[in-house]
């Protein structure tokens, strides 16, 4: 198999355009594609809708793009830890859509799996159920959540082979494998690119059919914060 999906970050970013919906992997900065985000700060793009658990942290990760005014809307579960989010939201500079974390993760999986929507018990009878369809199934109440899809997903993996098979590192996995399935164009930032055949069939988490481009990481999360490699 001679196909090689490795490319540079700037080349991969040609696929991200203003007004698009972008999924961004990570739990805070853990497992977030920090290098791609760094290049996005220099990429001419605006009015993005991001689907990500958080908007990075204050002034870090996706938080950088927020401060640049590149984000129009954020769909996620926990925006509290980046205090800039409340500020931009109150100033009318950022729209927010808050989902329970499990509903968010499942909606992304559903989007990738061709599931139009699903019924969850989570959030039934709470303020997050306002405006959502309720259905009784076998005597229990459920909320309808539609699947989520994106134009582009930028994700972080540990290792890739040139064809795009991916494995993840411990709790840096989080939303990344789900987002890999749910976007029209998927860019995987990885720490290591190994020879074809080096990732064993049983250890591959994301099969290559989900991945469009592989780029090498340049910025990583260390004990002392985000650093260049």
């Amino acid at each position, binding site marked *: 198999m001679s196909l090689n999906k490795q490319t540079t970050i700037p080349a991969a970013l040609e696929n991200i355009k203003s007004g698009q919906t972008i999924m961004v992997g990570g739990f805070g900065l*853990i*497992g977030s594609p920090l290098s791609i985000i760094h290049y996005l700060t220099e990429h001419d793009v605006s009015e993005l809708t991001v689907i990500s658990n958080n908007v990075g942290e204050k002034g870090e990760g996706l938080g950088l793009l927020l401060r640049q005014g590149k984000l129009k809307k954020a769909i996620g*579960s926990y925006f509290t830890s980046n205090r800039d989010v409340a500020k931009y939201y109150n100033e009318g500079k950022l729209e927010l859509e808050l989902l329970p*974390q499990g509903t968010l993760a499942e909606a992304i999986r559903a989007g990738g799996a061709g599931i139009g929507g699903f019924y969850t018990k*989570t959030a039934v009878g709470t303020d997050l159920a306002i405006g959502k369809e309720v259905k009784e199934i076998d005597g229990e109440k459920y909320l309808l959540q539609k699947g989520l899809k994106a134009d582009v997903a930028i994700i972080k993996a540990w290792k890739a082979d040139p064809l795009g098979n991916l494995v993840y590192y411990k709790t840096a*996995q989080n939303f990344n*494998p*789900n987002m890999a399935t749910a976007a029209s164009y998927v860019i995987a930032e990885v720490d290591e690119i190994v020879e074809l055949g080096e990732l064993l069939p049983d250890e591959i*988490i994301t099969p290559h059919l989900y991945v469009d481009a592989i780029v090498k990481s340049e910025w990583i999360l260390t004990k002392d914060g985000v650093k260049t490699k």
Partner: protein
Amino acid sequence: MRELIAERAAKELAPYSIINLGIGIPTLVADYIDDDLHILHTENGMLGVTSVDEEHIDPLVVNAGKLPVGEAIAASYFSSADSFAMIRGGHIDVAILGALQIDSSGKIANWAIPGRDIIGVGGAMDLLEGAKKIIITTSHTSNDGSPKIVDKCTFPITSQRVAEIIITELAVFNWKGGRYELTELMGDATLEEVKSKTTANYSINEGLLLEGEKV
């Protein structure tokens, strides 16, 4: 006080149960459980969480509070969707969570404060909905001294589901027959003190009453 509550909560955990710990006092429960008997799940994608020494910290191995954790023997990692499938699907035995308010009907408010921007929920609603048993660990009153165990939550509730156990620095309540029953006084707490700091409707276990007070 926080340690006292955490230590008491640990006593509720059956051997080999699968436990998810929320942020705050619940996180401290980890210090009082037997790693050989209890298994910790964290919703960001790990089963088999343990503590970690300063020198072995890996910035990419964290719990749901983004604090560094260690990997127990036989641990496993998985995606967020798979992790919440475990929670929502009823595969977590116990979730120990904090609360802003708990009310007479057993409902919990622990994700939003009226008047402040509602911009974060995380896994709170999934855990409260999906875990087989809920233990609430919380200070008995707010910082301003107002009761947290109230007749009706004034803060937005997290789920319609009832929390089975409440543990504070003053008391332990168990949900029984449609209301909370005060089953234990903590430390030097008295029935009077609990009564004065609790506006929820609750019953008192017979064993805690003096002979003359029993009905």
